[in-house]
């Protein structure tokens, strides 16, 4: 079984993001990058499937800057077999999700994968579109928000998280699956895995991306949180506090 996983290099979710002076990109100084967390879950799941089946190949693909080789290397150290980097030097904000999916689909098509996995959204731009667009371009069914995935023969059984319920769906391979939390718990790359990854290949490809049909106008930090309010002190404050929690915050 051939499994392709699409991953994106994004600022570490624990990084405090500062907007650059141009107002359209983030200030890269002091930012650390990681594999986008849902993509990392997808990588883990792919490796687990390969381990369960005892055979197969896991290929990670990323569109991003040359530095994204570090994130691909992380996936190889976790246990993926090889990687493809679609080199794109510009800001990821200059690409619309469809052009990203087109470039990925062009790279994935010749591999003829049985399964394509990716995170349900990237942690930086939150578009949540690439998986679906990829499925259309590859002419495969798409299963989104998947929290459980089993493969037996050519049949995949997935659990999808839908409002207030879990939907169980069966599909024939090949399919595209977008990963939700719970699908797998990413492992630490072992040191032997890191050493082994040195010998695995990262194929670099130049790509021509279609100019974005979306224009990013402005990035702005989220509005500051309104200041807290002290409703009173000691036990006399309890009724006011209960009232505020019930009627204002509506958490009780």
């Amino acid at each position: 079984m051939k499994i392709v996983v699409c991953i994106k290099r994004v600022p570490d979710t624990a990084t405090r993001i500062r907007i650059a002076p141009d107002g359209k990109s983030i200030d890269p100084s002091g930012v650390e990058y990681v594999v986008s967390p849902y993509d990392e879950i997808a990588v883990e799941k792919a490796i687990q499937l390969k381990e369960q089946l005892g055979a197969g190949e896991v290929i990670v693909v990323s569109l991003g800057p040359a530095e994204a080789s570090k994130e691909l290397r992380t996936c190889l150290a976790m246990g993926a077999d090889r990687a493809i980097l679609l080199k794109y030097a510009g800001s990821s904000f200059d690409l619309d999700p469809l052009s990203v999916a087109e470039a990925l689909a062009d790279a994935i098509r010749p591999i003829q994968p049985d399964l394509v996995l990716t995170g349900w959204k990237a942690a930086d731009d939150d578009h949540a579109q690439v998986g679906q667009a990829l499925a259309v371009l590859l002419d495969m069914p798409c299963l989104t928000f998947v929290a459980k995935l089993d493969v037996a023969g050519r049949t995949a059984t997935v659990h999808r998280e839908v409002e207030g319920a879990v939907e169980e769906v069966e599909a024939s391979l090949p399919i595209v699956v977008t990963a939700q939390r719970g699908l797998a718990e990413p492992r630490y790359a072992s040191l032997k895995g890191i050493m082994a990854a040195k010998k695995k290949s990262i194929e670099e490809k130049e790509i021509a991306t279609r100019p974005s049909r979306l224009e990013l106008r402005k990035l702005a930090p989220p509005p500051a949180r309104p200041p807290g309010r002290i409703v009173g002190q000691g036990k006399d404050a309890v009724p006011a506090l209960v009232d505020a929690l019930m009627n204002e915050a509506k958490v009780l």
Partner: protein
Amino acid sequence: MRKYRGVDYYALDELLSEDERLVRDTVRDFVDERVMPSIGMHFRNATFPNELVGEMAKLGLLGANLNGYECAGLNNVAYGLIMQELERGDSGIRSFASVQGGLVMYPIYEFGSEEQKKKWLPAMARGEAIGSFGLTEPDFGSNPGGMITRATKAKGGYVLNGTKRWITNASMCHVAVVWAKLDDVIRGFLVERGPKGFITNEIKGKYSLRASDTSEIILEDCFVPESALLPGSKGLSSPLKCLSAARYGIAWGAIGAALACYDEALDYSKSRVQFDRPIAGFQLVQAKLVGMLTEITKGQLLCLRLGRLKDAGKVTPQQVSLAKRNNVHEALKIARVARDILGANGVTDEYQCGRHMCNLESVYTYEGTHDIHTLVLGADITGIDAFR
């Protein structure tokens, strides 16, 4: 909890390879997620976190710079970065890994027979066998050459008699590398727990390295087979070679403890308000923080260069002494200053600098005390041995 980031004021990351950084970041995440949540409790209860042994082994942290026998085969810089990150968590965790890798797996690797290597190294890398290193005795610390422990030839093996004290991991070990005199020559023996006359007692009441097992080993007519002798070990230089291997990791580890303290003190000083401003806004506090940062950066440079020399096979034991001596001393001072910056909070185990401060007192003394390293270096540069 705020995510720990490390400090890289001189962009030393640029001097590390991609896989060295990956190793460091992996261990850093492991320490954040697996060590930090429980280490305070273990220190308070004086328990070693046994539950982490399997996880450290699975990551490949044990004997990581050895080649083959299921070891990860990392270079010495990557190995040093592992020690740094582990000690950022706690010196006790790093001590466990140093002893297992540098003081037990290393002598087996260096002085052992092929059978000994095959028997022990994979099991120790997997964390299934735990080792300890018994050199120090109640009456012979800085002067191990005077040891009393003796091995005498017996039918089919040797009989060991003597007492080893201050032995890390000894109460939980499956095998101890015991150094004893055989016909007046110091030799290493692999003593398995089990035979009669091998007794371990944990040393209680430590205020330092509380999350580490420190014990005494009593050898009472303890019989070991012929195959227990490390054939390649001969003379005091053998255990000293092991100490130099482990000491290299300690020089890196000390930076980790210092980084933890600096990180905590910097963060605290920015949020602690006195006289209507964060204490980080006072010149005296800034001077303390700058002093910490400066010493950390110098220590990082020392270690990185030391590691590259070691990888090139050019390092001298005296160079390792210099780094151990300097980095542990500076880390201890940094821990004390961090404790000071945290005020009263610094004396509780809600915060980590007090724990590191207490731990570093042991690190200052073991693997050659600070002053012994002074004398080692003094002898090296003057050609005059001032302590023997």
